[in-house]
C-alpha cells in the first residue's frame, strides 16, 4: 500500500479548478518530486493534499486511509508535516521555540526529537537561542523543515525548499532531504530546480495544466528527451 496516493484529484480556489486530475503515489522509502512549468498546479497539489484548499473530485489516501479534505491540524495528527514555500518560520521566535511549536500537538517528552533535528541540521544547534528571523534563507529553510519533523511525520511535504537559495545551500538542502528520507520519512516535494531535484527523486511527476504529463522514476524522466526538451530546458 502506498504511503500517499492521490487519485484523479480536482481542486482549486473558489470554483476555478487548477488541478484537473492529478495522480500520484509514493512509498515511505521514496522521495517524490513534482516539477513543471509555472501555473501547472505543483504547489496547489501539495496544498490540496494538506487540506489547505478544497478537493472537489477524486480522493487522497494516506496508507489507504481516506484523508481527502481533512483540515491541516488533523493531518498533522495523522503524521503529515508541511513546509510552506514562504513565511515558513516564526520570525520573532527563537530556533528552538520554532521547533517546539512544531511539536505543539505532542504531550510527551520530545527532547530526543530536538536532538535528532539538530543532528540533521547541525548549523541550527549553535543558533538555537537566536530569533529565526535573523537567520539566512537556507538556515530558515532548515528551521522550517525541522519544525515539520518534530511530530515525527511519516510523510513530509516540501514546497520549493530551495527557492531563492544559492547553489551551495541548494545542494545542502537536497542532502538533508535524502538523509531525512533514509531515516524512514516519505518526502513529496515541489521543485523549480527540476534537474537537480529529479536526480534525488525516486519518483518524478511532471505536471502541466493541472494534469500529469509524465510520471516515472526520476532517472527515467531525466533521460527522456521529450521531458528534457519541454520541461528541463533542453
Amino acid at each position, binding site marked *: 500500500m502506498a504511503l500517499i496516493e492521490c487519485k484523479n484529484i480536482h481542486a482549486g480556489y473558489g470554483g476555478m479548478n487548477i488541478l484537473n486530475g492529478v495522480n500520484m503515489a509514493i512509498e515511505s522509502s521514496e522521495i517524490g518530486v513534482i516539477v513543471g512549468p509555472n501555473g501547472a498546479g505543483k504547489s496547489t497539489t501539495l496544498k490540496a493534499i494538506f487540506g489547505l484548499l478544497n478537493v472537489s473530485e477524486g480522493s487522497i489516501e494516506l496508507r489507504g486511509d481516506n484523508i481527502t479534505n481533512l483540515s491541516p*491540524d488533523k493531518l*498533522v495528527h495523522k503524521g503529515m508535516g508541511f513546509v*510552506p514555500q514562504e513565511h515558513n518560520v516564526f*520570525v*520573532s*521566535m527563537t530556533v528552538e521555540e520554532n521547533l517546539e511549536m512544531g511539536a505543539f*500537538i505532542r504531550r510527551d517528552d520530545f527532547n530526543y526529537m530536538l536532538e535528532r533535528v539538530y543532528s540533521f541540521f547541525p548549523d541550527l544547534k549553535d543558533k538555537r537561542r537566536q530569533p529565526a528571523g535573523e537567520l539566512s534563507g537556507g538556515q530558515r529553510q532548515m528551521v522550517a523543515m525541522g519544525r515539520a519533523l518534530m511530530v515525527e511525520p511519516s510523510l513530509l511535504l516540501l514546497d520549493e525548499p530551495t527557492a531563492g537559495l544559492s547553489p551551495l545551500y541548494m545542494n545542502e538542502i537536497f542532502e538533508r532531504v535524502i538523509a531525512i528520507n533514509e531515516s524512514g520519512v516519505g518526502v513529496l516535494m515541489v521543485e523549480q530546480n527540476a534537474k537537480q531535484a529529479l536526480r534525488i527523486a525516486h519518483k518524478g511527476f511532471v505536471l502541466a495544466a493541472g494534469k500529469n504529463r509524465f510520471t516515472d522514476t526520476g532517472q527515467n524522466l531525466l533521460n527522456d528527451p521529450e521531458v528534457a526538451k519541454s520541461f528541463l530546458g533542453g
Partner: protein
Amino acid sequence: MNEFIFFFNSVVINGAVIGSIYAMGAIGVTLVFGILRFAHFAHADMMTLGAFLVLILTALFPAVGPAIGLPTAFVMMPVAMVATAFIAVGIDKLFYKKLRENNVKPVVMVMASVGVTLMLQGLIRFFAGTGTQSLYIDDRKAIFRIDLPFESASRNLVVTEPQLLLFLFLAFAVIALHLFLNKSRLGKAMRAMSDNPDLAKVSGINTNTVVGVTWIIAGALACAAGTLLSLDVTLKPDLSFMILLPIFAAAIVGGVGSPYGALAGGFVVGLTETLAVFNWTFVLRPLERAIPALDLPNTLAFVPTEYKITIPFFILLAILIWRPTGLFKGKII
C-alpha cells in the same frame, strides 16, 4: 523641596496611576489585536463591566475586606476577573466567532465590537443605573502620607492604598504574562499565532484554544484595570469608555501586538497627559519671590484640564507620522 514633592505627587504618582491603568487596558487590546487582528473597541466597556461585577460582589460580602485588612473590592477582584474572562469568551462565541469563520474583513469585526460596546453600556446602565458608585462600602480608602527625611520638606508624599495595590498588581500581572508568553506551551503558541497565523495552523496549533486563552487574559486584565481605576476614583457607567482613546493610543504608541510596548505606551501616555495639565504656578512660586517682576497667573499649564483628552490624540498623531510601528516593533507578540 516642597515644590518638588508637590510635583512628584501630582505628576509622577498620578501619571503612573493613570499610566498603569492605560497599560493594563492596552495590553488587553494589543493581545486581542495580535491574535485576532482587529481593534476591539468593546475592551473599555469590558473594564467597566468587570468593575460592576466587583461592585455586586462587594455589596454581597462587605465584611470580607476589613477582616483581612484590604479593600473588599480588591479581595473580590480575582472572582470578578474569572467571571469577566468567561464573559469575554462568551462574547467571542456569540458575536465574533461566526464573523471570523466567515473570514470577514477586520473592519467588520471592529464594527461588531462597537455594537458590543454599545450593548454592554446599555446593560450596565440597565442594571446599575447611570449614577456614580463607590467600591468602598463597609471600608474606607486608606491614604498614606509619607514623611520625607529632609528639613526643608514640610509636605508629605501622598499615595493611597488602591494606588499601591494598582502598582503591585500591575507588576505581578506583567511578570505573570511575561512568564506565560515565554515559558508555557500555550503562551508560546499565542506568540506563534500572532507571528504567523497560517504557519501556526499548519503546525497543528489549535487556534481556537489560543483565541480562547487570549480572551481569558484580556477579560481578566480588563476587569482588574476597571476595578483598580474605580477604587482610585469612583465607579460610573462611562468610566472606561472615556479612556478608550488613551488606551488605544497607548497600544499604538507601544507598537500594536507588543505587550511590552503596551506597558511602555501606557506610561508614556499617562505621564504626558498628567504633565500637560500640570499647573506650574505652584512650582514656580519661589522664582516669583526671587524676581518680583515675574507675575505668575493662577494657572499655568500646557493644556487646560478640560482638554486633557486631546493629549493622547496628539501623541497618537505624532507616533503615526514619525514611527508608525510604535516604540517597540508592532504586529507581533
